[in-house]
């Protein structure tokens, strides 16, 4: 990346939170609070069929009996679930067919985010399913995709247009009984993305969704369902930005990936929710359940760059059910100021000859706490399965914390499981080496950090790699200890 020291300096000075603006669009909000009536309201607003409502209500009943988990290594004030509005949608005037019909205000927001739809359409070959406050308002490249039989639409559309697929797969990977936040999501999810890749199709472009919390005081409950049918391939990008807000906002998403036999899914995330200010005030609570299931000889690869959110609680997992299936997890998690992250993965080996790789790089700065929590479970029948985990932590100041909590459960003697972790700060000799060659301290650190995270950043698709690298540098602004 060719951008100079001076530019970085300027950027660091001006940078509190780039994407902290609020779009002034009339929006329709559900009353504050959560009860069965609200769920019925959400469901009716979205013209959902009866089975969907039944599913929501069932999840709600389960949720009511659950208590919020507190095993994670994070401290925060528990959100008041009765003080959140569970539905906000930009007012829909009519069905939109072309961009001209889209609210110009909204178009400007997209431009500020750097994802101008026109440009995207013409140049990059990325289909953007733009989600703003829970309802998709613009979907591009749909026609091109539909020629190949690929379905890429908002979740509510899918519920109405492809109920058989949704019914068949929804809740099979993350059941509504799974955990507190997934139950909540199942009850009140507003919208999300749905994607289906038919048999033998290799998706020609990277599918991408921009999530964005916009309306103040609105919890966002996204739901993503991605199905890759036999021998298909898809690469999916998820990126997040959120406007600057003082009160804590809750984000409890559920992502389900289904890779059928010989299919491959690559799921990449750049998460840059509002992390709160330098004093630890505000910020987004990010409690996400992400999980994929692998069929015979299939592969799921999670790549994530986590720089935002006040509290992160996220474990993208793979259930390696089919024989010879492969699970991968590459993660860079950066925490600064008062951010807290408890993130990692679960690799559950069920099938024979399954393989998994975990590379997790944590960087903590300021007064933040960064934890890796991962499970590798080798089931009784997972013969000859193989796991390699590496979790490194980098500490930037003497007030932050880096923690590693790996769980290794092995029930098969033919499996080979390796785990290693290191925790250290940036080597003074490395720093000295760079500075001796005339590189400023700030730049040297960003060089070293980028090198440290390279293994993971390399796994990102081009579109994200550049952004992620820049994000890393910016997130660590002024954190040199």
């Amino acid at each position: 990346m060719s951008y100079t020291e001076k530019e970085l300096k300027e950027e660091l000075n001006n940078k509190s939170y780039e994407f902290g603006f609020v779009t002034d669009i009339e929006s329709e909000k559900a009353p504050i609070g959560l009860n069965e009536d609200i769920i019925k309201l959400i469901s009716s607003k979205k013209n959902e069929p009866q089975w969907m409502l039944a599913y929501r209500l069932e999840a709600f009943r389960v949720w009511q009996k659950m208590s919020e988990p507190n095993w994670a290594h994070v401290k925060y004030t528990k959100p008041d679930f009765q003080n959140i509005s569970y539905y906000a949608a930009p007012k829909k005037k009519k069905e939109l067919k072309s961009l001209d019909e889209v609210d110009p205000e909204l178009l400007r927001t997209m431009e500020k985010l750097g994802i101008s739809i026109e440009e995207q359409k013409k140049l990059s070959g990325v289909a953007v399913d733009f989600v703003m406050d829970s309802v998709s308002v613009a979907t591009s490249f749909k026609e091109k995709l539909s020629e190949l039989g690929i379905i890429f639409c908002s979740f509510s559309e899918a519920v109405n247009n492809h109920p058989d697929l949704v019914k068949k797969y929804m809740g099979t990977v993350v059941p509504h009984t799974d955990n507190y936040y997934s139950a909540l999501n199942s009850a009140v999810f507003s919208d999300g993305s749905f994607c289906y890749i038919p048999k033998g199709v290799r998706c020609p472009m990277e599918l991408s969704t921009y999530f964005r919390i916009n309306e103040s005081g609105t919890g966002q409950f996204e739901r993503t369902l991605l199905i890759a049918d036999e021998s298909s391939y898809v690469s999916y990008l998820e990126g997040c930005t959120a406007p600057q807000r003082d009160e804590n906002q809750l984000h409890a998403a559920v992502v389900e990936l289904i890779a059928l036999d010989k299919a491959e899914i690559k799921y990449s995330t750049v998460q840059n929710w509002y992390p709160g200010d330098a004093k630890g005030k505000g910020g987004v609570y990010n409690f996400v359940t992400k999980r994929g299931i692998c069929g015979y000889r299939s592969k799921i690869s999670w790549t994530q760059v986590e720089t935002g959110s006040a509290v992160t609680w996220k474990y993208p997992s793979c259930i390696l059910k089919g024989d010879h299936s492969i699970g991968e997890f590459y993660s860079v998690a950066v925490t600064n100021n008062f951010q807290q992250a408890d993130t990692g993965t679960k690799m559950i080996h069920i099938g024979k000859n399954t393989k998994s790789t975990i590379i997790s790089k944590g960087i903590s700065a300021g007064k933040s706490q960064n934890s890796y929590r991962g499970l590798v479970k080798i089931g009784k029948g997972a013969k000859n399965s193989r796991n390699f985990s590496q979790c490194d932590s980098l500490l930037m100041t003497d007030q932050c914390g880096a923690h590693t909590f790996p769980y290794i459960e092995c029930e098969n003697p033919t499996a080979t499981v390796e785990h290693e972790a290191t925790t250290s700060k940036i080597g003074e000799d490395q720093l000295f080496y760079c500075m001796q060659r005339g590189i400023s301290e700030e730049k040297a650190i960003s060089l070293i950090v980028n090198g440290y995270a390279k293994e993971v950043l390399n796994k990102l698709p081009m579109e994200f790699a550049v952004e992620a690298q820049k994000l890393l540098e910016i997130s660590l602004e002024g954190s040199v200890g």
Partner: protein
Amino acid sequence: MIIKDLNHNSLLKENSKLDLEALNLGSFPKRKEERWKYTPLRFLKKINFHNQFNFKIEHLNSLGIPKIEGLVIVLENGKFNSSLSNIIDLMDIELLFLNDGDIVNNSQEPSHKDYFTNLNFSFLTEKVVLKIKPNVNINEPINFVNIISDDNCISNTQFNIDIYENSKLHIRQYFLGSSNSKDGFINHRNQVSLKSQSSLTVDKFQDLNQNFNFCNEFIDQEQESKFIMNTFSASGIILRNDVFNNVNGKNCHSELNGVFAPIEKQHFDNHTTINHFVADCKSFENYKGVIKESGVGVFNGKVIVHQDAQKIEAFQKNNNILLDDESKIYSKPELEIYADDVRCSHGSTTGRFDEEALFYLRSRGISVKKSLELMTLGFINEVIEKSNDSAYKEFVLKRLLKD
């Protein structure tokens, strides 16, 4: 405080059966609790314990341990057995027992309270206090033997070791269950205090047969002290070791090593917590698991580096070998670090023996059994070697390999 609550003891005399879950000692640990996630306490709950203290063992030789010389302290079924012990008068050593007056009242409130600590304090059957005066180097190891020889007997014992400045000691602990007893339970607690520049090595050997053994170890280290503990777990229905090592002074050395070899559905649990409160210390952990015949092994190591404890070097290692389809291992090496200038790492591996190495040995006419034994030996030798007494080493190896 629990200790003063003598009602439990009187209650016990009237009604000698103990139902662990019915005792009012705080909540009985559940599988949902992180620390007790893997321990199958249901086996323990089923048993109705008593603590009538009979001495059954006539001679230490009958337990199959090598000849022990020097100072020997023997507890049997939770009481000091003077006929088996060999109390020689050593200068510079102070030795006290529960009956010697006020030592119960002197004991500190436990820093870590859980059900089994409470049980231990409330139903304390014997306590041994060993004090080493300053500037003494005791070369001969001191032996502490804790035997269970009666069915369903519960033994709540404590061993306090205080080592004063610049002294050095080596202790061998044997936790044994006689082969004809079953469902006995030794709930033991070691409390170690190491003053500055002192040094202690503990070799702990557990061979409980059909009995249970839980050990809580609390170690407090002052500056420049050295603590080494080698735990060898050979048999027992459930063995559980909880080590809490608090390093409170600079330039300390802490080392925890272990070999656990469960067979036949036995469950061996190893939990360690090393707390680095101050800077410039080193800690090492090395645990080896050899698991076969439906055995279950657990390693849960935790290193906590507190804020301002800079320049800590901590290393955790856990290697496990699974020898058959039904055996299981749960490994959880944890690092919790709040200081930046540290070098902390851990490694954990699980697998089986190299087929090629096995083939190499067999092609030279060595039987499968013998080959596996040789390879196990090679695997655990790294830890066994920490002991420099060849007779002791040989005995431990023999029991761990179960031949």
